[in-house]
C-alpha cells in the first residue's frame, strides 16, 4: 500500500482547505479536528491548572491568605469539572481522532460532519460554564459531584452549569457514536477485530461506556434542575424523595466515567511499551478481555463512593467485593506491561519514560483505591485528603501521563518533526519528581485526618501542606516546558522525522509519511505480513 497510497496522498496534500474559517470552523478532516481537540484540552489543562495553583497557594500555610472560603470552593469545584470534561476527555478524544483512522487504515472518521459538531460544542459549553464565575453569587461551589441539597442553594449559576454539562454530554455521545462506527465499519480489509491496536480496542470499549453513562448524568442533573426550578421533590425527604437517589444516579455515571478517563490511557501505554521494549505486547488477547472486564465491572461498583451514607450492610458487602474484583483485570494489565518489558532491548526515550512512570505511579493509585474500596477502612479515609491523593495518582500520573506519553509518541508523526529529546527528558524528570512531592504527602495528610475541600486547616497539617504546595508549583511550572516543546516541534524544529519514527514501532500509522498527509488511506491499504503490531495474533 505505501507506494500507492503515499503518491495518492501527496497529490491530495494541496487539498487542505484555504483560510481559517474553512479549515477549522467547517472542518471535516479527522486530523484537523483531532488537533483542535488537543489544543482545547491543553488550554483547559492550564485553566484548570491555574485554579489548582491558587488552591495550593491558599493551602501553602494555615489560615486564610489569598481567597475567601466560598471562592475557594468554587475553585475546587470548577477545577474538577474543567480537568475532567475539559482537559482529560477532550485530549483522549483528540488522540482518538488523530490515531484511530490511521491505525485501522480508514480514510477518516465514519461521520465527519458530526465529528466537527462534537468538537465545536465543547468551547461553547465551557464558555457557558466558566461564565458563571462572573455572575452574581459566583459559580457552583458544592464540589464537582454537585450533591443536593447543598448544590440546590446555588444562585443563578446552577442552570448555566447544568446546561453546560448537557452540552458536554451531547458532544461526548456524538463523539463516541462516531468512534464506534469508525472502528466497526471502516477497518481496512485484513485489520480484524483481534488484530486492532490496543489503543483502538480501549477506545471502542470507552466509547461504549460513554454512550451508556452520559445520558444517565444528563438525567441526574436534569432532576437537580427540576428540583430547583420546577418544584419537583426528587431530593426532598419531606416529599418522599431522597438525596441519596442523586448520589446513586450520579455515581452510576461517575464510576464508569473514571474508566473512560483511564482506559484510553491504558491503550496508549500498551502501544508505547512494546515499541521501546522492541517486543510484541505480552498477552494481547488477555489485555483486550481485561479491558472489557474492567468496563463491565465499572457498572456494578458505583456505591463504593458512598459507603458512609448508611447503605444496608448487604449492599456495602456487594459493592466492596465487586470493587475488589476490578483488581484482577487491572492486575492482568500491569503484569502484561511488565512482562512486555521483561528481557526486551529497552531504550528510554521520553514517551517510554512517561509510560514506565505511568505503570509504577498508576499502580500506586490503584493500591490506594483498593484501600478505599474496603468498607471499614473507607469509614476512616472518606472525604479526607487520602481520597484526593488517590484520585490524583490515577488521574494525573495515570490519565494525564498517559496523554503526555501519547503526545510525545505521536507528535513526530503529526508534525513531521522530532521534539527536543533533551527538553522532553527535563520535562519528564521534573514532572515525575514534583508530582510525587505534590501528591504523596497528601496520603499522610488524609490519614492524619485532614478533610478535603477546605481553605484552612489545623496547624498540625502545616508541614506536609507546604511540601505539597511546593511540589504543586514546580509541577505546574514544569508543564510550560511541555508547551514549549510542542510549539518548538510544530513551528521551529528543522529536523525531518522518518515515516517509522521509532525503530521498534509497528502498525499502520507508521506506514504513512511524517507528517501524515492531510488525507491518508483514501483507498484502503493492502496489509502485508509484519505491518500490524498484532498481526500474528489469532491466525
Amino acid at each position, binding site marked *: 500500500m505505501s507506494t500507492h497510497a503515499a503518491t495518492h496522498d501527496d497529490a491530495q496534500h494541496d487539498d487542505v482547505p484555504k483560510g481559517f474559517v474553512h479549515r477549522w470552523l467547517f472542518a471535516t478532516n479527522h486530523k484537523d479536528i483531532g488537533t483542535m481537540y488537543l489544543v482545547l484540552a491543553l488550554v483547559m489543562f492550564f485553566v484548570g491548572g491555574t485554579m489548582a495553583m491558587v488552591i495550593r497557594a491558599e493551602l501553602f500555610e494555615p489560615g486564610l491568605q489569598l481567597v475567601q472560603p466560598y471562592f475557594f470552593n468554587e475553585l475546587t469545584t470548577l477545577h474538577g469539572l474543567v480537568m475532567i470534561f475539559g482537559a482529560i476527555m477532550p485530549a483522549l478524544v483528540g488522540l482518538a481522532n488523530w490515531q484511530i483512522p490511521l491505525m485501522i487504515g480508514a480514510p477518516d472518521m465514519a461521520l465527519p460532519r458530526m465529528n466537527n459538531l462534537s468538537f465545536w460544542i465543547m468551547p461553547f459549553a465551557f464558555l457557558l460554564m466558566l461564565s458563571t464565575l462572573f455572575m452574581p453569587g459566583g459559580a457552583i461551589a458544592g464540589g464537582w459531584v454537585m450533591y443536593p441539597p447543598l448544590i440546590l442553594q446555588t444562585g443563578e449559576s446552577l442552570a448555566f452549569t447544568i446546561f453546560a454539562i448537557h452540552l458536554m454530554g451531547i458532544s461526548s455521545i456524538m463523539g463516541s457514536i462516531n468512534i464506534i462506527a469508525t472502528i466497526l465499519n471502516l477497518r481496512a480489509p485484513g485489520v480484524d477485530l483481534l488484530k486492532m491496536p490496543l489503543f483502538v480496542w480501549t477506545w471502542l470499549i470507552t466509547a461504549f461506556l460513554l454512550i451508556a453513562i452520559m445520558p444517565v448524568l444528563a438525567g441526574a442533573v436534569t432532576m437537580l434542575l427540576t428540583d430547583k426550578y420546577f418544584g419537583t421533590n426528587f431530593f426532598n425527604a419531606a416529599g418522599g424523595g*431522597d438525596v441519596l437517589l442523586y448520589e446513586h444516579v450520579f455515581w452510576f455515571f461517575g464510576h464508569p466515567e473514571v474508566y473512560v478517563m483511564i482506559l484510553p490511557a491504558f491503550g496508549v501505554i500498551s502501544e508505547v511499551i512494546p515499541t521501546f521494549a522492541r517486543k510484541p505486547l505480552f498477552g494481547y488477547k488477555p489485555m483486550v478481555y481485561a479491558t472489557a472486564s474492567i468496563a463491565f465491572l465499572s457498572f456494578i461498583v458505583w456505591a463504593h463512593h458512598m459507603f458512609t451514607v448508611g447503605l444496608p450492610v448487604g449492599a456495602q458487602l456487594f459493592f466492596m467485593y465487586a470493587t475488589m474484583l476490578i483488581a484482577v483485570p487491572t492486575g492482568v494489565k500491569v503484569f502484561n506491561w511488565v512482562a512486555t518489558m521483561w528481557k526486551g532491548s529497552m531504550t528510554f526515550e521520553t514517551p517510554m519514560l512517561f509510560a514506565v512512570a505511568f505503570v509504577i505511579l498508576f499502580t500506586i493509585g490503584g493500591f490506594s483505591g483498593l484501600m478505599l474500596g474496603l468498607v471499614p477502612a473507607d469509614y476512616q479515609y472518606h472525604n479526607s485528603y487520602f481520597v484526593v491523593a488517590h484520585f490524583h495518582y490515577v488521574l494525573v500520573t495515570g490519565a494525564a501521563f498517559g496523554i503526555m506519553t501519547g503526545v510525545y509518541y505521536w507528535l513526530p508523526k503529526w508534525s513531521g518533526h522530532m521534539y527536543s529529546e533533551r527538553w522532553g527528558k527535563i520535562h519528564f524528570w521534573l514532572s515525575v519528581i514534583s508530582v510525587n512531592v505534590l501528591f504523596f504527602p497528601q496520603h499522610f495528610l488524609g490519614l492524619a485526618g485532614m478533610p478535603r475541600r477546605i481553605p484552612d486547616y489545623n496547624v498540625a497539617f502545616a508541614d506536609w501542606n507546604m511540601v505539597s504546595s511546593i511540589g504543586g508549583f514546580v509541577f505546574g511550572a514544569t508543564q510550560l516546558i511541555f508547551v514549549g516543546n510542542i510549539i518548538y516541534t510544530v513551528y521551529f524544529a528543522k529536523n525531518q522525522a522518518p515515516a517509522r519514527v521509532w525503530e521498534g514501532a509497528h502498525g499502520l500509522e507508521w506506514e504513512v509519511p511524517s507528517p501524515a498527509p492531510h488525507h491518508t488511506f483514501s483507498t484502503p491499504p493492502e496489509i502485508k505480513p509484519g505491518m500490524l503490531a498484532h498481526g500474528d495474533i489469532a491466525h
Partner: protein
Amino acid sequence: MSQQVGSYYVPHGSRWPIIAAIGLFVFMWGAAHWLDGITPEGPVLLFSGLAILIFMFFGWFGEVIRESLKGVYSAQVDTSFRMGMMWFIFSEVMFFAAFFGALFYSRGLQVPWLAGEGHGALTNFFLFRHYTGGWPTNGPASVGGPFETVPPWGEPLINTLILLSSSVTITIAHHALRDGNRRRMLPWLVATPILGMLFVYFQAREYMDAYTHLNLTLHSGIYGATFFMLTGFHGLHVTLGSIMLWVIAYRAWRGHFSKEHHFAFEAVAWYWHFVDIVWLGLFLFVYIM
C-alpha cells in the same frame, strides 16, 4: 463542496456543524437566563437559538438528502448511518433508564425507609414517625396536598392502543415500501404520525385533568416528580418522533425512497418502535402497578 475519495465518502467541509453548535449554545444560554428569571433576554435568546437550530436542521439534512439522491453514499456509508442511529437510540434507552431507576429506587427503597422499614433508618424515628409510606405518595409532609392518580384504564389505555397501532401502521408501510408498492405505503405512513399526534392530544388532556381535577401536579411529592418526568420526557419523544414521521412521509411522497435505499425511513421506524416500547414500560410501571 464534496469529494469522493476511494470507496468512502468524506465530505469536504461543511458550515452546518458550527451553526448547530452556535444554535445549541444560544438555546441553552437563553434557557438558563429564562430559568433565572432574566427576561426578556432569556426567551429572546432561547427562541433565537431554536430558530437557528430549525434553520440548521433544514440546511444540514437538506444537504445530506441531496447528496443521498445524487447517489454519493456507498453501502459502507449507509452502514455508518445505521450504526449512528442504533447507538443514538441506545443512549436514549440509558436516558430513560436513569428515570426508571429513580422510580424503582424511590418506590422500592427510599419510601419504605422513610416509613421506618429496615434497621437504623433514623429519619423516620426522629422526623416522620407518623409516616406510613405506601405508593403513590407525596411524602411525610404531603407536599402538594392530597392527590389522586390517573386511572390506567381510561386515556392511558387508549394511548397504549394508539401507540401499538402506530407501530403496526409503520411496519405495514415499511413492508409496502420494500415491495415497491408506493400506493399502499403512503396512507399507512401518513396514518402513523396522525396516531402519534392523537397520543399527544390525549396525553395533554390527561395532564389537564390531573392538574384541574386530581390535584396531581409536578409538586406532588416523589410520585408527581417521577410521574411527570417519565411521561413528560416520553411525550416529548413522541412529539419529536411525529415530526420525524411527517418529514419521512413528505420525503416518501416526493419519491425519495427506493426499495433498497431508505435509511431515513428505517431510522425513524426504529426510533418510533423505541418510543413505543418505552411507553409499554411506562404503562406497566407508572400507571398500572
